[in-house]
């Protein structure tokens, strides 16, 4: 069965890619992903804020106690050769490239415009095949309008586009007044792909300690409905590759997403739950499903259930709101 697909200019052997997350931090796990059949890997995100935070933290803890006592003018053996930047991340890219044949899609979360472009350049130099911009930003500023926020997104994409030749995708959250408009504008700004959708972690309240706790929950199959709809809406109407992420657990989810118009599907929660070997299971079952349903290739079905190609596009729009509620009863 021909599972080949193209994403961000990369020729991929199938549409299943582990998405950005903790699993990609370990080179051995990445090798297991390759063995299980993953088409590429999206690395965990390089967070500019985290790099800054770590540098500031070490600076703070080493400098605040220096030169305050005659006996102890410092408390740390300070190395002269210090790697306070993204060296670990860049080295990780190089190591994956050296030890596997997987295409590497790096993921970047910048803080400053300069940070986005500088780290993007370094990622390109390190040998990544593509770059996913993880613009993970909660709009909480009362003085910032939606227009301002949208402009920030576009400025970042434009700035990175100007600095690197790498294909770039943008991982978006669903919270835009107009996802469609935003998608079009990102395309104009230079994005080659959109990853739908980023899932913002939602903290919990611990009733014993009365503290807000970062309680990470894995995505459930229900979560795929949102990207499914928007991929179907956008397919063929914006000139970017679409990647589906959130709630993809099995081969049928993959089929649905491809039918909606996705070039690739990104998986993480199912791998965290079932292990990296789950990729191989999904691929086996995908092959079986396609054969059983007499498809020749994935390309054949891609977008077949999109807004553009489906018999009743209104099903994807708000017009069917009452119908959905009714069906729930």
């Amino acid at each position, binding site marked *: 069965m021909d599972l080949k697909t193209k994403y961000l200019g990369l020729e991929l052997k199938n549409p299943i890619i582990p998405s950005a997350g903790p699993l990609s931090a370990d080179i051995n796990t990445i090798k297991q992903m390759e063995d299980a059949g993953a088409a590429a890997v999206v690395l965990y995100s390089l967070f500019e804020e985290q790099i800054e935070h*770590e540098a500031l933290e070490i600076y*703070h803890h080493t400098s605040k106690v*220096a030169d305050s006592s005659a006996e102890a003018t410092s408390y740390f*053996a300070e190395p002269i050769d210090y790697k*306070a930047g993204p*060296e670990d991340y860049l080295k990780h890219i190089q190591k994956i490239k050296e030890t596997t044949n997987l295409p590497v899609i790096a993921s970047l979360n910048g803080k400053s415009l300069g940070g986005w472009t500088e780290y993007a350049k370094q990622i390109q130099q390190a040998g990544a095949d593509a770059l996913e911009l993880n613009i993970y930003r909660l709009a909480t500023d009362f003085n910032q309008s939606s227009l301002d926020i949208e402009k920030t997104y576009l400025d970042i994409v434009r700035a990175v586009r100007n600095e690197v030749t790498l294909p770039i995708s943008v991982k978006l959250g669903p919270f835009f007044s107009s996802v469609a408009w935003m998608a079009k504008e990102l395309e104009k700004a230079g994005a080659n792909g959109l990853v739908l959708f980023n899932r913002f972690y939602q903290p919990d309240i611990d009733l014993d300690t009365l503290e807000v706790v970062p309680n990470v929950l894995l995505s459930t199959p229900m979560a795929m409905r949102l990207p499914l709809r928007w991929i179907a809406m956008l397919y063929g109407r914006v000139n970017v590759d679409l990647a589906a992420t959130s709630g993809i657990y099995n081969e049928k989810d993959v089929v649905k997403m491809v039918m909606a118009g996705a070039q690739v599907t990104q998986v993480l929660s199912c791998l965290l739950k079932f292990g990296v070997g789950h990729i191989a299971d999904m691929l086996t079952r995908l092959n079986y499903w396609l054969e059983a349903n007499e498809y020749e290739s994935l390309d054949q079905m891609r977008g077949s259930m999109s807004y553009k190609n489906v018999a009743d596009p209104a099903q994807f729009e708000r017009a069917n709101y009452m119908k959905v509620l009714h069906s729930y009863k």
Partner: protein
Amino acid sequence: MIRKKVTIDGNEAAAYVAFRTNEVIAIYPITPSSNMGEWCDAWAAENKKNIWGETPSVAELQSEGGASGAVHGALQTGALTTTFTASQGLLLMIPNMFKIAGELTSTVFHVSARAIAAQALSIFGDHSDVMSTRSTGFAMLSSNSVQEVMDFALISQAATLEARVPFLHFFDGFRTSHEVMKIEQLTEDDMRAMVTDEMVFAHRQRALTPDAPVLRGTAQNPDVYFQGRETVNPFYNVCPDIVQAQMDKFAQLTGRQYHLFDYFGAPDAERVVIMMGSGAEAAEETVEYLMAQGEKVGLLKVHLYRPFSINHFIDALPKTVKILSILDRTKEPGAAGEPLYLDVVNAISERYNEGTLPFAYPKIVGGRYGLSSKEFTPAMIKAVYDEAKKDKPKNHYTVGINDDVTHSSLEFDPNFSVEDPSTFCGMFYGLGADGTVGANKNSIKIIGEGTDFYAQGYFVYDSKKSGSTTVSHLRFGPKKLRSTYLVNRAQFIACHVQVFLEKMDMLKDAVEGATFLLNTKATKDDVWNSLPMTVQKDLIQKKMKFYIIDAYKVADEVGLGGRINSIMQTCFFAISKILPKEEAIGMIKTAIKKTYGAKGDKIVQMNFDAVDKTLANLFEIEVPAEVTSTTVLKPFVPAEAPEFIQEVTGQIIGGFGDSIPVSKMPIDGTYPTDTAKWEKRNIALEVPVWDPAVCIQCNKCVLVCPHAAIRAKIYDEGLTSGAPATFKAVKFKAKDFGDNLSYSLQVAVEDCTGCGLCVDVCPAKNKQETRLKAINMADQLPIRESEAANWEFFLNLPEFDRTKLNVGAVKDSQFLQPLFEFSGACSGCGETPYVKLVSQLFGDRAIVANATGCSSIYGGNLPTTPWAKNKDGRGPAWSNSLFEDNAEFGFGFRLAIDKHNEQAKTILMKLSAELGDRLVLDLVNAQQIDEAGIYEQRQRVVALKSKIEELLQAGSDKKADLEHLLSLADYLVKKSVWIMGGDGWAYDIGYGGLDHVLASGKNVNVLVLDTEVYSNTGGQCSKSTPRGAVAKFAAGGKPMGKKDLGLMAMTYGNVYVAKVAMGANDAHTVKTFLEAEAYDGPSLIIAYSHCIAHGINMETGMKNQKAAVDSGHWQLYRYNPDTAREGKNPFRLDSKGIKIPFKDYAYLETRYKMLTKSHPEMAARLIEEAQKDVTDRYKMYEQMASDKAE
């Protein structure tokens, strides 16, 4: 050849040469020499090479004794080997020094000379240590300046290889070891030229090797030992000439000509001072001045002190000399004179007797100066020369102090100065943590390396570890700087913390027309009225220029928090105009890039932003003509303080310790306790404030407070009548002691350091606003006065009856009065809560042996001590012997106390009839297992003393026995011996003794305050340091696992052993302390102590403790031999399993995290191995806990 100019301190200068001319370096930390070892370890970690292209092996030992043993061994096997030390450390090397010299072995020991602990420990500089090694056979070469340190390090290395006599190369601790000076750096070519390969081959050829076996280190008998000892004479005879030849060779290379004795002064001098060390620099400066006044004075600077070459010495003196004044920086009580004096007397006498003295027999007088880095100024030096003018000059005098007891001291005019007007002098007052010293070190480098000026910096710190004051003394100028004393004629004074103006008369050292720079939150309009009266007066009378900046605001704006170094440095350059402004700013930025470049672009950018924003925030203030302020300096201690506190302690607090006369000082180093309470430091900007409505009265805040600044009391309702209006009291919630008790939680806001540990551990949250707890931090200033009054009222409320409290429960234990309060420990210290707990539970009958280290410094460094007394005048008695012998010291306490007790009981039994059988039996058989038992025994002792007095008055014929019994009666009350110290002591230098004392079976309680690093000397690796942590001497991460001290102690079977971590389980800690003390045998408690050397947020240090336990790294357990006697398993694992991976704990702390940035691959490997350490060890303990008792 043009050599590089560098601006470095003496320690770095010595280490620079030592590292490049040796193959093996054995080290151990001791102030002020630790930095030499640290430099070498850091260079080795960076794989830097010696002149033969090899990286020297740098190895830390368990003590200086061990280091010298390793040196001896490495030398015997042919490696060029060195070490660095000072003070007690040097004394521990003496046995090996005799061996090394006796075996004619080439080596150089670099020593930053320091005082020896006598009536008190002192970390500061004098020659007491090096003078104690005179008889070892080491040659002794003295460097007087930083340049000489680098030069003599090389000359001594070459000389030792040629002469086969080992060398002790020394320079003054702090004054030279820590003075930053611009010097010319030697090149590796210089070193190769001086240390030839032939010398190395010869040294190597003498090595022990099985390929050509010999025997060295024999035992000899009366028949030959003597002759054998005399064999070395020829080597010593030629050694001075060898040194001079090497000095001459060095001069050809560098142009700097040195002699064994360098004379400076009038060719026809009549009065000549002879001395060595840094003081000679100031003396030279003074001689130059006096010569210009036409005085016939001279100075002989001794470089090669041993072997003492009489010929070279006599030849160096002017033939016109009439009187020699010999100054020694040491004291030898009971000697006929100090060492250099005696050597000079002997030299003159010998040559006179031989008839070869080339001048008339001069008068010879000697004096002592500069002990423990006591200032030695031109004023004092002039007094020495003036004294020499007298017909009958004093001999064996002192200079620099007021000896009003034996009247040894010379008077001097403190206003005499020889400062050259072309030299710029500045003083900068900063807070320990604000970066002032670092900024000034950078300024010196900028000026030193960016201009032709000479540059000098010296830094003075107070003895507190929290809220400490630093004063930087900087000099720059076109003339060579020889002023080896503090600045006291300043053209520039900067105050980086305005509150200092309330405490010290900072402008007293300003010259007329000087500039004053103040970091203040006051505006341009308000600042004048914010100044104390004396400051205003000085600004007006001295016609000073006045500038202000709100550096904290600028630092905040750019994200630098409290680090104002770059800002104040920019102000200094902008105002002083030492360099053109733009050039200076460019150089500051270059220095910032160099200092912080490796730490991340963000840090560099923040500092750049700070520099750029500074000038817009720097304002010159026109000094008004009139004084408007009525604010005067506060008294150093309150008027109600006792006389000694007023006359001695208060003077030291106020910075006037130098003027205290000998008569006021305790004669034997004995000081009163209970004195920290007089030193209201007011260092916290924010302090905790209690919210009784939210409080659940758990007392956890009281338990964790490192400074005993937050306390709880329960007392009868009604006692609050007359309380200040803002005093808070609520009903005590528990009914354990009846219904009518009030509860108060009170903060000593003037003693609090504002660490916030109390707030962090508070479990109660405000139900409306969960960000608030039952205690919350608030600004100190607005509540200072009212809370001080509340504190006073609180103190006067009665302490609750100890005998009624269930002290095994955390809450009740914290109603016990702490007898350890307001120490100078770091804000948020992880050690002091344990020390305080000991003082609460057992303090009124405790005697403490304290190993040298953090706990001896915050416990016993003048001016005050945190060890306190209760209303009955009882409290811990405390002493510090040494670093290495603390267990044995405490063991001695136990032996004496037991003997006193035994003797008292013997007499009791003997006098049973007279004293009353019932009383005697009760006294002898008293159990004293709890507070009630102790109380009852004390009552019996009162009755006993009364009975004895009665019998004595009645003329008893048992007078002698009764008087003995009276003097021993208090020993019938159980005494609790506590042996305390850090892991450097317990795991390393003191381990042998600790092991022996534990094995003795005696009832001592050992408390190891385990910070897993040598905290006091600046974070060097100990055997307690865990694998993967970065520490000094383990710059590349410690490759070996942590020693399991507890397990080793358990093997004896009769030692109570426990590990505790208050932040993980406070109830376990309290219970353990009680069990350990109750155990009638040796007890060892190893207490996890978070520390600033871990690189953590100290306000959440208790969370780090919990993480350490949750990760399994720190196991909570108790091994109680009493349980075994009951047929049960004596070992109980109190940890509740491994809950988080080791790295989740480790990477909370900079000590582990920084390795991921410096050596990421090594970090990854070590963290994996460390996880295995933890898992394996935990499993072993689980196994031990599950074992059934036999």
